[in-house]
């Protein structure tokens, strides 16, 4: 027989002034299974807790109902208290007779009756409580960072600096991402490479960081603290263990290929480093273009390499490792504006370029060594039109969202043109100017003071006429059509999630929104966590943002990772779902509704019609289950149940009304 103790709290006068607590205690004493019922002035106080402990010992109680304030207030307090008694902390139910009774009702008689009902429901439920035990899962103190842009580098460095091992996976042959392509950063105008390459080098040399370039993650299993990740190493055809990065191969390679790092504004070789400051500073072979790999002819690099590092037989390799935490920093791409905006020439005018192309043009290490020259003829443009929101805030053609960084880099581009080309004119077509950042508005003001002409309106058409690019649009402030003759047009295009990032995220159990940006666990309160515990995100993988925000978020993600890795073991809530496997039909309905992919279908030996068979049944991963109970409501048989809120417990609460 159960020996339930019921404590009715006065909460000073908070409860007792409305609810006749003595009457509630008297009624509770008559309820099935109740051995002891008493009131207490302040149950949560030390003396209140001592009184409960004493009652537990004296009356050999095996479960407890406390009628007091909301369980959201003191459930944890009382559970903690129970750890010091003979009662399991989960043999406790709280009847909320303060927030949901004494504070909201005035009729003392009715409030008392309601309190009795609420206590009754708790008493009925507690009779079906079972002792539950937290279990612990080990934490593998190693972090995986996916994406080697500034976000990934920052997160990796922060975690590594704290003393934990990090593996940084990058699909390109070098880390660096988009930031390293940029020339200057707004609003301070410090050289992007100057501040990002030291970080790259630091990451490359850090004893706790293992760089895995030309790599992608292909599979993730397991759960927080224990992710088994399979990493695919793409063939590089160059042995990076022996290569010193002398560059002889690259110098002599006869095959020239469009250089995508320079946004197609230059050529590179078929064996190449992504850019001069690449980390690792070692070349790889572009298998798509290498004549040796394509047709078996050439092999010059192999002949020249003094250390014999070239291996045309290189194969892809799969490496599986265990990580405690994963950070997704998969970054962004720019939209393909040529497809979305045929009215801007759709790519047929060489002098209509993207902002990122402009960054390469103006970059000292770019194809023009920093001289702004028209890609079409190499001439210096005197009049430049900058078009903002190309693809952003334009749901009809591309993206509905604001890409956040464009207003500022458009101002930066305008500034750079005005500064570098004497007598130049810059017209900026804009919808709005958004400058919410430290020093941003000031920078924008300065650019305008420098002479940039801001025209409010979208460009409706760009066409070539007499060697000039005519940009037509409406100046909505004066309500008139305007046409600007330009030598060059820079389109500040929208960001979109890096290609393949949603697939990578899905591998790690992270979902994306309709635009493909990865979904955080809570937009405000858990901005760097995801619905999959132990997987974090940062940078533009989560949504468009600029470098300061990206870096801040990367450090935030690192802080979360450190919070996890600092623990040797994770205590898991015991209030999770459990499967009664012999009853499970294996329909998988629970799996379909689980928000955290904690349920998987597994084959188990079983009996069926008296025969030994192998059947498929549901299995709950206790490390992943978040205890929502959606599975339980989806199960027709009721064979998957949520501990702490079992079907039986809830039915008992409902049935309790019958007691009078």
């Amino acid at each position, binding site marked *: 027989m159960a020996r339930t103790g019921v404590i009715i709290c006065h909460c000073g006068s908070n409860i007792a002034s409305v609810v006749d607590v003595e009457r509630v205690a008297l009624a509770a004493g008559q309820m099935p299974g109740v051995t002891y019922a008493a009131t207490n002035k302040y149950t949560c106080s030390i003396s209140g807790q001592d009184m409960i402990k004493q009652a537990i010992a004296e009356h050999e109680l095996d479960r407890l109902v406390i009628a007091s304030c909301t369980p959201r207030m003191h459930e944890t307090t009382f559970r903690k208290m129970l750890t010091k008694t003979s009662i399991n902390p989960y043999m406790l139910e709280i009847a909320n007779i303060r927030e949901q009774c004494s504070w909201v009702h005035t009729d003392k008689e009715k409030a008392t009756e309601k309190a009795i009902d609420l206590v009754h429901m708790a008493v009925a439920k507690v009779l079906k409580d079972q002792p539950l035990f937290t279990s612990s899962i080990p934490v593998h103190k190693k972090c995986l960072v996916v994406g080697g842009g500034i976000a990934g580098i920052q997160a990796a460095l922060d975690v590594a600096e704290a003393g934990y091992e990090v593996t940084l996976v990058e699909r390109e042959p070098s880390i660096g991402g988009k930031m390293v392509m940029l020339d200057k950063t707004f609003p301070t105008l410090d050289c992007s490479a100057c501040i990002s390459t030291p970080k790259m080098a630091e990451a490359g040399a850090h004893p706790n960081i293992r760089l895995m370039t030309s790599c992608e993650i292909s599979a993730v299993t397991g759960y927080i603290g224990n992710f088994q990740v399979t990493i695919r190493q793409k063939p590089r055809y160059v042995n990076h263990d022996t290569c010193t990065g002398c560059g002889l191969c690259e110098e002599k390679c006869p095959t020239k290929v469009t250089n995508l790092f320079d946004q197609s504004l230059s050529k590179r070789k078929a064996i190449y480093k992504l850019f001069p400051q690449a980390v690792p500073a070692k070349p790889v072979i572009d298998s798509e273009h290498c004549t040796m790999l394509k047709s078996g002819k050439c092999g010059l690099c192999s002949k020249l390499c003094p250390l014999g590092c070239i291996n045309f037989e290189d194969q892809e390799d799969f490496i599986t490792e265990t990580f405690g935490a994963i950070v997704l920093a998969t970054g962004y791409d720019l939209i393909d504006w040529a497809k979305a905006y045929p009215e801007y020439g759709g790519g047929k005018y060489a002098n209509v370029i993207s902002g990122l192309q402009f960054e390469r043009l103006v970059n000292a290490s770019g194809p023009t060594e920093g001289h702004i020259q028209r890609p079409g003829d190499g001439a210096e443009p005197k009049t430049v039109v900058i078009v903002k929101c190309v693809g952003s805030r334009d749901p009809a053609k591309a993206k509905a969202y604001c890409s956040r960084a464009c207003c500022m880099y458009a101002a930066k581009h305008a500034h750079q043109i005005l500064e570098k080309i004497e007598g130049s004119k810059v017209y900026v077509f804009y919808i709005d100017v958004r400058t919410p950042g430290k020093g941003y508005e000031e920078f924008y003001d300065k650019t305008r003071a420098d002479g940039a002409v801001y025209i409010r309106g979208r460009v409706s058409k760009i066409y070539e006429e007499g060697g000039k690019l005519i940009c037509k649009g409406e100046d909505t402030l004066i309500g008139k059509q305007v046409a600007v003759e330009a030598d060059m047009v820079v389109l500040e295009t929208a960001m979109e999630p890096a290609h393949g990032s949603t697939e990578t995220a899905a591998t790690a159990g992270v979902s994306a929104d309709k635009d493909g940006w990865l979904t955080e666990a809570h937009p405000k309160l858990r901005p760097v966590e995801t619905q999959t515990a132990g997987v974090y995100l940062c940078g533009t993988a989560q949504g468009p943002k600029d470098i300061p925000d990206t870096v801040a978020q990367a450090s935030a993600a690192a802080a979360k990772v450190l919070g996890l890795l600092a623990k040797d073991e994770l205590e898991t809530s015991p209030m999770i779902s459990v499967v009664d496997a012999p*009853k499970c*039909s*294996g*329909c*998988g309905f629970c799996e379909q509704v689980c928000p955290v992919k904690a349920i998987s279908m597994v084959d188990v030996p079983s009996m069926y019609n008296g025969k030994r068979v192998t059947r*498929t049944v549901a299995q709950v991963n206790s490390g992943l289950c978040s205890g929502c109970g959606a599975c339980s409501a989806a199960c027709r*048989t009721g*064979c998957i149940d949520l501990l702490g809120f079992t079907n039986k417990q809830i039915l008992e609460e409902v049935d309790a009304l019958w007691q009078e």
Partner: protein
Amino acid sequence: MSDVQNTLRDRVRSLLAEGKISCFIGWGPTRFKDRTIPKFANKPEDAGELVYNEHCLSNLAKYALDFQFSAEVAGIAVRGCESRAINRLIADGRLTRSKLYLVGIPCEGMLENGSTAEKCAFCRHRNPVVYDELIGEPVAEQENPPRFEQVLELESASSEDRYDFWQREFAKCIRCYACRNACPACNCMECYTEQYRTGWQGKQANTLENSVFGFTRAYHIGDRCIECGECERVCPMGIPLMKLNRKLVKDVESLFGSEESGLSDDASHALGCYDKEDLEEFM
């Protein structure tokens, strides 16, 4: 129909003889002219005992569960209703398509007490929707049979009349669970009614408990019912169960835009997924 019967016997004989299937589930004769019984042909010579006529009322699909753990392939005769039931059972993880050999039979409806069986009257899929081979030529489908006519009629009754209607009907229920056991969507290893410890459902046969069972079963299968009408056919008390099931089918179709159940073995079902743009009534 005798052509179909002859072809069926020939085909089953060969399939068994060739070892393509280990057993064939069809219909066999009874001592009564107007009744058939599910027949399991294990050997080529059993094929001659198979029957196909207008009295083949049983939906055979659930008998395939007898072979769910068998290493061999089982053959089964499938008309529209059986084929959808097989899809349902595959979708719900109870059968494996590769372990089944489906002999399709287009069907023009069966007879019950001398006239078209109630379960066939609203059929929209007389031709099997999945099969490995088809006996005979596809038949014309019934054009828009008024599936929801009876539901609409009851919907237009007053709340009180609806309550009285179902209470009167469930007063008849004897809790034999024939409806459940015949239903291809009721394919749980153990029914919720058997979970005595949880106590979902009292075993006592009274109108209330009977109707709790009736409504719960309807809800459990509502988004997966293939409208084969077996539950109603097997009910010894003649409770119009399809009038209940079709209500849910109708709502699932109109609320969530789901297609009819059992047209494919896709595991998705209306309550196993959601659309953020679903109807909002609870604001």
